[in-house]
């Protein structure tokens, strides 16, 4: 009797999960229509292919489990915001890990060489560190505009702000990045003369 009940329960669970699966076909459609832009953005934020794949997977898993499998009203906005947050969390974790692993002296020695300063990889990493430090509203705009290549109108729709506000936020973000990158450069120069 008990065994029969268990098997019925399992059958019911299977049927429910199948029907939910059938109704979640929109996830595949979202992947088809926004996947390319999303992968490009994640690659540019993270600069590592495996990390980009992981962030992509996390994004769509969160989408699949959004309010018990319900379809969000604005899928594109949801996907881009989640992907952005996931990527920045990964980036921060990576930066923290790097700081912990490499001692300060080694890192500084590495940076102070003039050849390295011109190195594009060093520039990219510095920029990524600075972007990860930005406040959320500025960071969202800079990643969507400069790394995902979206227009201000699209960014406004995704973040729920006007295109003009997005423009102002980007300007502020660039100012902050300028100051922070300048500071890093100054620190390096200071170390060089010490």
């Amino acid at each position, binding site marked *: 009797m008990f065994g029969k009940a268990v098997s019925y329960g399992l059958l019911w669970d299977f049927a429910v*999960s*199948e029907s*939910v*699966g*059938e109704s*979640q*076909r929109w*996830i*595949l*459609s979202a*992947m*088809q229509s926004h*996947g*390319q832009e999303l*992968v*490009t953005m994640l*690659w*540019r934020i993270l*600069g590592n*292919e495996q990390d*980009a*794949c*992981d962030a*992509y*997977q996390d994004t*769509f*898993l969160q989408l*699949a489990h959004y309010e018990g499998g319900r379809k969000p009203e604005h899928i594109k906005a949801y996907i881009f915001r989640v992907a952005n947050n996931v990527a920045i969390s990964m980036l921060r974790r990576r930066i923290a890990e790097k700081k912990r692993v490499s001692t300060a002296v080694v890192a500084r020695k590495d940076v102070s060489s003039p050849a390295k300063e011109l190195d*594009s990889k060093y*520039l*990219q990493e*510095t*920029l*990524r560190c600075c972007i990860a430090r930005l406040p959320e509203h500025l960071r969202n705009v800079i990643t969507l505009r*400069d*790394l995902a*290549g979206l227009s201000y109108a699209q960014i406004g729709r995704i973040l729920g702000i006007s295109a003009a506000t997005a423009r102002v936020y980007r300007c502020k973000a*660039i100012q902050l*990045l*300028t*100051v922070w*990158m*300048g500071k890093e*450069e100054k620190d390096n120069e200071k170390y060089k003369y010490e």
Partner: protein
Amino acid sequence: MKSINTNSKCRRIRAWLYEAVSSRFGADADWVKKHIVNCPRCRRRLDLVGKVNLALSIVKSQPHKLDLLMRANTQTIGVLKHSLRRAPKARKLRTMLPEPKLLERWGKYRCSAANLAACIAILFLMKIGVFSSMNEFQTRGQKVIRQYYTSQVGEDLADEVFAKDTQRPSSANSRGVFTA
């Protein structure tokens, strides 16, 4: 209608203002350039802005492997529900490669499209020109013939013959035959 006109006027004024402000106070203005040449602080600041822009361009210009989208899709579909994994669309996504956008794809035809549009515009203008000159010839011809009639049969009769369009002369009967 009035609001549309006001909106377009506002837009035009905004564009003019932007142009005026950027030409006088933009980074390309002469007095700004002169100041930058003599001010090390501003030079450094501009240098840093350039550095940020350079870093952004480098990040954007780094290519990823062609199969990144395919791999990301495969990895993601692998953790989705069984029914989604079996869907025909999933199979397609697993082998999906990045495609250029529609604008980029048709971008190479931009020049040809512009040339075609210019040719059509020229043809249209030519057609308008030909028709307007034909109209002019017709009016002039009518004038000449009227003048001839005026000199030959008198102004009153010429007026009746060349009355507007198909208006029948007052001296004609119901069949259109002139009576004495």
